[in-house]
């Protein structure tokens, strides 16, 4: 290792000694540490401000009165805090309906993805029969395909099967899209649960399926929750499939509904748009905050070894 003691901030040994004499020992090192700290805090603050500003702006604007939205120069805090935008959202628009539709599609796609993907992942993790490993690898390729490519033939399917303009088509489409991720993630998760636990259960009196239900599943719960969150998030935000598969007002999901409003350039309802933005963002943020805790405990609880 290079014997040069050249750290970014150090001076020559003589000046250090001088400073030590004046300010006490190790003064320069201490000063370096403090200025490092200060710089970090400053950078962190800048970063948080810059990144967080749009979100701050969104929330703040949602509480402003409609006419306040068009002030130039704009107010940074509402002159008058109001919930009018929120109430208008539910009374004057189909926002409530969109919200419900999104919920149906997201919950539906997430459940299907978890059940189908979870079982499939278990199979890939535990069994070595012909074709299983190969299938697992091919699945990863699916991730490389763009939505735009898939949506064309899927649209043809949907129309030919008479499923055009249904939420069902969206549920299936989103399940298909989140399935590869579920398979991959849960496979890793199952791999981390020792197979000997299931073997022990089978010796203790379970069939393989009973062992899966009583032993593996409870231990895989954190992983399922994490995957579920990803799937929910994806379905909640998904736009292209909704755009292509559905058209009527009653079947619109949030992403599509909001998009139509944007497209219409409704200058007079920015307040409602901001309110809708807040409401659409909340479930996902909440979900994430809740899941964060669970994710940490994870398999620290589980495992049979020391």
């Amino acid at each position, binding site marked *: 290792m290079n014997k040069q003691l050249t750290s970014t901030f150090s001076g020559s040994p003589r000046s250090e000694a001088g400073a030590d004499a004046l300010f006490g020992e190790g003064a320069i090192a201490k000063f370096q540490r403090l200025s490092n700290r200060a710089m970090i805090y400053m950078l962190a603050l800048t970063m948080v401000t810059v990144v967080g500003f749009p979100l701050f702006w969104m929330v703040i604007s949602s509480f402003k009165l409609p006419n306040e939205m068009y002030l130039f120069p704009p107010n940074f805090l509402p002159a008058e805090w109001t919930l009018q935008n929120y109430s208008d959202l539910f009374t004057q628009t189909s926002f409530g309906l969109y919200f419900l539709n999104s919920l149906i599609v997201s919950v539906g796609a997430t459940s299907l993805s978890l059940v189908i993907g979870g079982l499939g992942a278990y199979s890939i993790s535990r069994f070595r029969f012909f074709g299983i490993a190969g299938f697992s690898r091919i699945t990863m390729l699916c991730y490389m395909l763009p939505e735009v490519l898939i949506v064309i033939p899927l649209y043809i399917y949907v129309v030919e099967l008479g499923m055009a303009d249904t939420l069902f088509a969206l549920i299936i489409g989103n399940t298909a899209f989140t399935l590869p991720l579920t398979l991959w993630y849960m496979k890793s998760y199952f791999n981390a649960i020792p197979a000997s636990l299931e073997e022990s259960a089978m010796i203790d*009196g379970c*069939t393989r399926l009973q062992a899966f239900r009583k032993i593996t599943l409870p231990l895989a719960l954190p992983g399922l929750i994490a995957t579920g969150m990803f799937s929910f998030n994806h379905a909640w935000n998904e736009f292209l499939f909704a755009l292509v598969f559905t058209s009527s007002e009653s079947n619109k999901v949030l992403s599509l509904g909001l998009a139509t409003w944007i497209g219409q350039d409704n200058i007079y309802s920015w307040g409602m748009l901001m309110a809708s933005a807040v409401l659409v963002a909340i479930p996902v943020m909440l979900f994430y905050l809740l899941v964060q805790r669970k994710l940490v405990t994870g398999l620290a609880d589980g495992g049979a*070894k*020391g």
Partner: protein
Amino acid sequence: MASLEIRNINKVFEKHKAVGNIQLNVADGEFIVLLGPSGCGKSTLLRMIAGLEMPTEGDIIIGSRVVTQLPPKDRDISMVFQNYALYPHLSVYENIAFPLRMRGWKGSKLDEKVKWAANMVEIAPLFERKPRQISGGQRQRCALARSLVREPSVFLLDEPLSNLDAKLRQSAREQLRDFQERVGLTSIYVTHDQTEAMALGDRIVIMDSGSIRQIGTPQEIYEQPADTFVATFIGTPPMNLIQGENFITGFRPENFMPESFFDINTSLVKVPFQPYRAEYLGDEKIYYGATRGPFFSDRVIARVPNTFKGTIPLNEVSTFAVPEAGLHYFESGETGKAVTRRKSEPNANAREH
């Protein structure tokens, strides 16, 4: 409790023959150890007895039932895994109760049995804890209690002591054997540690590369090894093997000592020995050296107890000896099977140097 018979078992994985032609009869209540190096097939054999693998050929018979096609849960066996396989989300009590619950046991009947099993290994005070909250030794006892609670016909153990640190291993070994004797379970124990095998087993089954090399009591295995593999696997340091013209001669280091050490009446074969290194081990010294004379070799090991008061200078030739009774003979070549040497045959040795 029941007897176990392994008849003609073969297991082939794709192109690889893991286990071939295994025959074994285990008596009711016997403690059998499957011993061998990694990859010898001992774990595969154990798992086939358990029902976790299906044999390609052959049968497993427990008591009078042919269980080969039965799933593990119907074989009336229990198993302790290397990592204990305790259910992490269940308490110690529930872990032990699990096998009974699967059979539909409930209420006070269940409770009594769980307590009985727990008391056998003194783990009752830990009932409410979860596996991650107890120590390695305690987990092992919990696994034992869980295996015991159903009073199975056959008890299987897959290297259950290898996860314990050395100190704990010794006392755990004692407890284990004690436990087995008290309960009288027919047990099959897998290990690669020969000290463990010798200490625990009624009989030892030594395996290598998928086949059985020898079955015998510890004494039989040690004093009458069936081939060179067994001869060198058992015993630390391993038996000295010297290739001669027609045979391989073998003698154990503890039988190879200075001539003056032996009693006058013992029939000896004298061997000049020049050690190049000595290790002091407290109660004995181990010498590594070369021999000339009847057996030529560059690496022979001798174990000399420190009760021997003479000096054995390094890099000088001393006269050592082996009692005739301590000589073993083996076929040259692959098998290295043990043979008895007829007095008339040319002496098995002698590459002149």
